[in-house]
């Protein structure tokens, strides 16, 4: 253990408080002179509070554009938050090599995240050598060990990424991350591009690695089934905000937020045959001009006046179960109850 390790807060892997991130071009001369309308600003993240305990496996779910990747990249130190505080093991993830090494991001598309012109052996050894995790004399064995751990035959070390199948490529990118001896893995849709049979292989790999290496996971996905299988805590995002956050079992048993309930209803299920699909009403609003109040009110079947003006706070609705819905404050209470019968 290095001095660095000892200093850090060892029980919390990730802590985000009030993290906001906006995107948008810097105003040009024309905007400054008010000759042109201001550049549109995208609120990718809007006041995120999130804490992941060490060893946790958090599934982050949300629709496309809800800010999942942005959150993941901020956690991995690849992007700076516009506002708010981020710490990973007690450090700013953008500060320094050591913390960089400890958080690793695994991307959705293994094809795109592997440099097509770099052989596996170099992909796996370059950064560890740079960070002093192995010595040039031992690098062969090191690479072989990483590959074996990720379920790849070390004999493939001289291949280029395109010489692998999709699942194998994802294993390569996992091996590349593991070679950095991380403690925290951010998986951004890491299984979304894979076939179901391959997806199962990779999910199994994640689960066994977690046990072997005592890893913390932030697992981003839009597939609730996957999250349900692997995560022990589920966080739901909608348009840059967290709307629900609960332990997995509790979450699937007692979902609270209307959006979550809608999502759960749409999960395809092998057991449901000749189902009658019900179209969800309303369009997903644009993150450029999110609706005021609760972002979900435009599609929410239970929306009432307060939802249109006031942003609901994330509140405890059960032990360890947070939800951001005004319905919890009303007398009628939790919409879950109402929905249970349906």
């Amino acid at each position: 253990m290095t001095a660095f390790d000892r200093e850090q807060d060892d029980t919390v892997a990730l802590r985000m408080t009030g993290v906001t991130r906006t995107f948008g071009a810097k105003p040009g001369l024309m905007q400054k002179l008010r000759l042109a309308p201001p550049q549109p600003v995208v609120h990718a993240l809007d006041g995120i509070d999130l804490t992941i305990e060490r060893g946790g496996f958090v599934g982050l779910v949300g629709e496309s554009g809800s800010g999942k990747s942005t959150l993941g990249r901020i956690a991995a130190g690849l992007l700076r938050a516009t506002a708010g505080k981020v710490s990973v093991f007690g450090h700013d993830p953008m500060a320094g090599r050591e913390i960089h090494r400890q958080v690793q991001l695994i991307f959705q598309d293994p094809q795109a995240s592997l440099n097509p012109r770099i052989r596996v052996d170099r992909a796996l050894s370059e950064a560890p050598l740079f960070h002093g995790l192995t010595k040039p004399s031992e690098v062969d064995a090191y690479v072989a060990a990483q590959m074996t751990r990720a379920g790849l035959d070390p004999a493939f070390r001289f291949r280029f990424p395109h010489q692998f199948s999709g699942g194998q490529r994802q294993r390569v990118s996992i091996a590349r991350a593991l070679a950095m001896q991380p403690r925290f893995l951010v998986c951004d849709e890491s299984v979304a591009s894979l076939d179901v049979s391959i997806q199962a292989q990779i999910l199994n790999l994640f689960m066994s690695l977690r046990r072997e290496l005592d890893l913390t996971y932030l697992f981003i996905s839009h597939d609730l089934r996957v999250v349900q299988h692997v995560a022990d805590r589920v966080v739901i995002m909608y348009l840059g905000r967290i709307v629900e956050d609960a332990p997995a079992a509790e979450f699937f048993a007692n979902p609270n937020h209307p959006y979550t309930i809608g999502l759960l209803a749409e999960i395809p299920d092998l057991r449901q045959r000749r189902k009658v699909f019900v179209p969800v009403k309303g369009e997903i609003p644009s993150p450029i001009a999110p609706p005021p109040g609760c972002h979900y009110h435009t599609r929410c079947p239970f929306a009432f006046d307060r939802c249109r003006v006031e942003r609901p706070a994330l509140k405890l609705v059960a032990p360890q179960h947070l939800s951001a819905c005004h319905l919890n404050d009303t007398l009628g209470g939790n919409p879950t109850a109402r929905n249970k019968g349906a």
Partner: protein
Amino acid sequence: MILWLIRRIAQAVLVVFAMSVVVFMGMHMIGSPADMLLAPDATQADRAQLIAELGLDRPLLEQYWRFLVSALHGDLGRSFVYNVPAVTLILQRLPATLELAFSALFLAILFGVPLGLYAGLRPDSWLGRGITTGSILGFSLPSFWVGLLLIMTFSVSLHWLPASGRGETVRVFGVNWSFLTLDGLRHMILPAINLALFKISLVIRLTRAGVREVMPLDYVRFARAKGLRPGRIVVMHILRNIMIPLVTVLGIELGSTIAFAVVTESIFSWPGAGKLILDSINALDRPVVVAYLLVVVTLFVLINLVVDILYRFLDPRVRVEAAA
């Protein structure tokens, strides 16, 4: 849009300024035009007098300053050789060059696009392969050589077309045009082909590459899945999308076509600006060279402007970004 225009023009002015400095310096370093211009029996006194008349006896900086001042007043000086305002001289000759360049461009599109389309749509047919390989030839042949071959074949041996010169012209808007008379057209064919050869190859290749790129895209497949007629697919879905790179490249190429007209013009004795500029460089006729480059750069800016506008028209994505 206005800002963009202003920026463009400012850039152009900068380019022209830099250009004129370089040309001024360069021409000064090559030699004195007096040595070129004077009759061989001219005496040293004649020489000194001429140099004084042309203002070449002054320090270079002062010469440049004088040029700059009068340029700002719209006077780019008189040609040393022709004793005519340089701009007048260029404007007299430029239409002939432009006419040639545009004809070449026209031919390039006329032949290049259909051939390229064919080669792209049927890459494995022998004709498609032939077109592709043939287009390499168009790249490889030095144009002066082709020019002479054209003359030898079509003028000298077959007597089909005239070998040189511009033929009969008609004056419209104060400018002489060849394409309005039969004789003028006949004179234009060979030089235009000569100049167009490289462009035709270029257009063929661009079109072909574009078709090959666009063809497997889902939206073309979807267009076919809609049951559209092949003609409509080619025109609306394939061509429309290829036009974007094509217009960009052709815009840039029009400039180089004007420049490369130097070669064609000297082979076909085409009385255009290319020949003039070549002679002027040889004669160190600085005002003409500077004015020519100025006019050409201005032309370039205009062409780029047109290309940008076309681009906006062709690609809605750009249009919206610009509006935002």
